[in-house]
Structure formats: structure tokens, C-alpha cells
């Protein structure tokens, strides 16, 4: 992954500027105490980590505490991070471990709940397994750039409505771009479960996008 580096302006770290930087260089700069590099890391991941943390804990306030705690863990662990996984995978693993501890009491057990949700209600088949009724056609409409933008906004809102474990997998795979093995490692789930949760999560988002287009 290539990230952009923030540079100090008038003594303050703001925004991101133009220099592209490889992860290894970013890590070297973090270890040497480079504030601009740290600001880059935070700017790149803070809101993404908040969104992921939100799936594990009961409130936004707790999620913010978890992310703050994660950054402390990151700062303390920079010297020990060997770069064997991607920076994203490393950060999300620290986050998920902390979020799981914070949300342990409130969190429903995923195996008993999200895997048994009403997935079949999203698509309708007859007794023989054929469509009944057939899905309404709208994929072609999404080629329109304005429609695509609207769908991205709806997809983002829909993420928050997914059952927590589906949201975590869809977020890490389709929004963050982690591969399947990384997602399994970060969330501590099996490949089989990862596949089921991803498929169901995507199917739900697809359903919401269809409704969005149908309302136009």
C-alpha cells in the first residue's frame, strides 16, 4: 500500500500532501519519531478503525476509547512490529483484540446469531430452487456515474445496518481490501465462516442497493 505523507504547515500537522511513501519507509519514519508520518498513519486509519470498532462495542463513545487505546498500543509497539503483515492488518488486529475485550459482555456470539439470519428472505426461490420471482434488473443502471456515486453512499450507510460479524468481514474485505487470510487472522475466524459471512453481507448490501435504485 502506498500512503500520502502529511507535512507540517505553520508548525501544525494538517491534511495530507503529495509525497507517496512505501510502508517500509513509513515505519522507519514512525520509529524515528516523525510526527508527520504518525499524522499520516492516523489520518489514513482513524475513521476506518472507528467504524470497525463500532461493530464490537455498544456505543460510539466506547468505540472511540477503543481506538484511542489502540493508538497507544500502536505507539508502544512500533519498535516490535516486524513488517511481516501489512500495516493495515497489524493495526486492525490490535484494534479487534482491544475491541473484543471491551465489548465482551455486550457482544452476541456470532456463530449463534449472524450465521442464522434471514438470508433466504433476501432472495426468493421456489421449491425446485429456481427464482420466484426473478430479481429486478438494475445492474446496467449502475454504469451511470451519478448512480454509482449514489450507490456508494447507500452501501456505506448499509454497512452500519449489517449484523456485526457480517459488517466486520465486509468492511475488511470489500472496503479495506484485506485478503481472505488477513481477515481470518484479524477477526480470529475460519475461512469457511469468513466466506459465509462475506456472502451474506454482500447479499444484504445488494438488496439495499436494489431498493435504492427502485426508489429513483
Amino acid at each position, binding site marked *: 500500500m502506498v500512503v500520502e505523507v502529511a507535512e507540517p504547515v505553520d508548525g501544525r500537522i494538517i491534511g495530507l500532501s503529495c509525497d507517496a511513501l512505501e510502508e517500509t519507509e513509513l515505519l522507519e519514519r514512525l520509529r524515528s519519531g516523525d*510526527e508527520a508520518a504518525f499524522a499520516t498513519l*492516523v489520518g489514513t486509519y*482513524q475513521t476506518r478503525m472507528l467504524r470497525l470498532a463500532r461493530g464490537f462495542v455498544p456505543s460510539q463513545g466506547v468505540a472511540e476509547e477503543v481506538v484511542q487505546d489502540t493508538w497507544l498500543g500502536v505507539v508502544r509497539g512500533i519498535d516490535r512490529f516486524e513488517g511481516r503483515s501489512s500495516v493495515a492488518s497489524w493495526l486492525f488486529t490490535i484494534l479487534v483484540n482491544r475491541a473484543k475485550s471491551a465489548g465482551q459482555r455486550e457482544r452476541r456470539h456470532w456463530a449463534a446469531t449472524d450465521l442464522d439470519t434471514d438470508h433466504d428472505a433476501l432472495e426468493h426461490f421456489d421449491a425446485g430452487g*429456481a427464482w420466484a420471482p426473478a430479481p429486478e434488473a438494475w445492474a446496467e443502471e449502475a454504469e451511470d456515474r451519478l448512480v454509482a456515486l449514489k450507490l456508494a453512499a447507500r452501501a456505506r450507510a448499509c454497512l452500519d445496518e449489517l449484523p456485526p460479524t457480517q459488517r466486520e468481514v465486509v468492511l475488511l474485505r470489500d472496503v479495506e481490501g484485506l485478503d481472505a487470510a488477513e481477515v481470518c487472522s484479524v477477526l480470529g475466524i475460519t475461512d469457511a465462516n469468513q466466506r459465509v459471512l462475506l456472502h451474506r453481507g454482500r447479499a444484504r448490501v445488494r438488496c439495499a442497493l436494489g431498493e435504492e435504485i427502485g426508489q429513483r
Partner: protein
Amino acid sequence: MRWLRERALVCREAVALMSDYLDRRLPARDIKRLERHLAECPHCHEYLEQLRVTIEALGEAQPDDLSPEALDELVVVYRRWRDE
């Protein structure tokens, strides 16, 4: 068991394979079965395209930017670590 492998898919089964198909995680045998079904079933073909659009939309679903104040707070934490 050869006859089982060659049995044509029904739509419900085809849909269950599509996510793995788009992720290129489907075994060659299932790819063939699914593609054979897709060639004959416009509804499943449409569903596959909708799933493709969904994944693209999710890829563009980026979160809001971090506020400058929140960023400043975290840089202070980092500075403290650096100066320890």
C-alpha cells in the same frame, strides 16, 4: 459419484457460489458448472452483475475524514511517546 458433479445447478445453488466466483476462490469444477448455468439463466446473470456492482460500491464507501482537532490530540500522544 460422477453424475452428482455433472448435475446442472439450480438458481439457489448458483447464487451461493457467486461471491467466491467473483473473488476467484471457486474450484475449477464449480466455475464450469456456474458458468454453464449463467449462460442459460438471465436472472442469475443479472444477480451476478448486481453483486459485482455491490462490491464496487463498497470499495468506494470510504469513511469521513478525521477532524483536525482529533488528529492533533493523537499527535500529542505520539510526541509524548517519542520524548519519553
